[in-house]
């Protein structure tokens, strides 16, 4: 499903954010990426949805080399992905509802369908009672949950989550990863970046360990 071959990334000289990373994540896998702060976890995830273009290497997703897709076709790749960003990236001038609905609006979903799906997604992360509120009125952990709801609303084939539980209490964190596991069981490939050892211990099918841009350990499922 997701194949990275000898991916290197340099933002600024000197130093490499990623150096020679080769990974294959199979369809339906549930996979953690971990490593110290600044080790390149987010960068690795970003290359997968082409927010970051690697300096060298190839990335094949669903059989397609995503580095060869022209800029104006990139949306086709992203419509199949649900992404939870480390910095949430919420629409702060839109209501909670619109923040989730936007993932359906871009594909022109009818309103009624949209309302139902949005509500279901918000209930999953326990935010349905704030549906008409604004993100700026949410606590930080609630914002994180909103970001998660948006990522899952569209039944994506691939789910990428960057530190999705960094601002949640341990109980809620377990619930959220449980939710991801649930989605994974329906066939979605899931990749999660996290620092939380407890979660990895509890759910870790497969763990990728990054250190200064290099992949240290590859644990097969």
């Amino acid at each position, binding site marked *: 499903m997701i194949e990275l071959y000898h991916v290197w990334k340099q933002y600024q000289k000197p130093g490499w954010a990623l150096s020679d990373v080769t990974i294959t994540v199979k369809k339906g896998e549930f996979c953690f990426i971990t490593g110290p702060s600044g080790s390149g976890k987010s960068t690795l995830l970003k290359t997968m*949805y082409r927010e970051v273009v690697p300096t060298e290497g190839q990335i094949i997703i669903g059989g397609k080399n995503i580095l060869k897709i022209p*800029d*104006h076709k990139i949306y086709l790749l*992203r*419509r199949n992905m649900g992404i939870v960003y480390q910095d949430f*990236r919420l629409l702060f001038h839109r209501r909670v509802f619109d923040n989730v609905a936007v*993932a359906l609006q*871009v594909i022109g*979903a*009818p309103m009624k369908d949209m309302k139902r799906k949005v509500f279901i997604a918000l209930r999953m992360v326990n935010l349905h009672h704030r549906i008409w509120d604004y993100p700026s009125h949410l606590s930080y952990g609630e914002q994180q949950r909103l970001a998660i709801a948006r990522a899952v609303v569209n039944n994506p084939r691939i789910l990428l989550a960057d530190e999705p539980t960094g601002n949640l209490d341990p109980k809620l964190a377990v619930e959220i990863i449980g939710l991801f596991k649930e989605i994974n069981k329906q066939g979605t490939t899931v990749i999660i970046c996290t620092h939380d050892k407890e979660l990895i211990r509890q759910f870790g099918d497969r763990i990728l360990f990054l250190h200064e841009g290099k992949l240290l350990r590859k644990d097969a499922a």
Partner: protein
Amino acid sequence: MIIYKAKYFLRETANNLWQYKTRHFFSLTIICLSFLIVGLFLAISNNLRDRADDLSKNLVIVFYLQKSLPAAEQDLIEQQVRHSPLVADVRVISPAEASEKLLQDFPGLKDILMNLQTNPFPASIEATLKDPRTPYDQTLRFITEMKKNAGVEDVQFNRDWADKIQSLSRLAQAVGFFLGGILILASFIIISNVIKLNVFARKSEIEILRLVGGTNTFIRIPFLLEGISLGMAGSLLSLFLLLIITKIFPVYLGTSLGALQELISFRYLSFSQVISMVAGGGFVGFLGSLSSLSRFLRI
């Protein structure tokens, strides 16, 4: 699906317009002002052209005929003048009419003229030119030819008048093109910049739309609609203000203007001018937002 998208676009545009209302109000003011000034100059130049046409009716060449010229020869000259392609209208002025005219201009001469036994004035033919913009050398050639005729004793052609009218219309045109061009450009820049600001303000939103799989067109359409509405609203508003000004300004200046009042009397724009102002507004808005989008959202 198209209907859902259309609904979304309209809602989005309305949202955008409403959310940055301060900015839009301010840009609208300036766009409206620009179009207002364009409109004003259009109106002024309309009126100037009318005035120039009025004046051109007085643009005449006067042929003074020999005294006691036989009527047949006089007719011959009149026919010759009348057939020139330059001439629109011909009027024959008898000696009696000429004397009367002089008396009107100089009432002080009354005694003198009354005391004369014969009318000292020659008859003359006044030829009104068809087009006040006729090149001077053409007119001159016509005059030289007429002078060859023995019956024509003298020719008067006030070149100054023709020059003045020609340069007045040229001036109006120049000022119109100059100011109009600058201000339309200014409106374009303003709209382009407002949209750019909006794009900037929504930079993170746009990024999010891209990240959840929105196409370029999907992201752009609301901004284009925004630009078009701004431009059209601006020009519509300016037309309305212009209407008010053309009604109020003359009243304000009032009777004190005397003869000049006629020169600056404001008439409203023609229907086709109104239409092209509004369409121009929309077009400028469209181009403005397009230009700012192509730079900010790579195609």
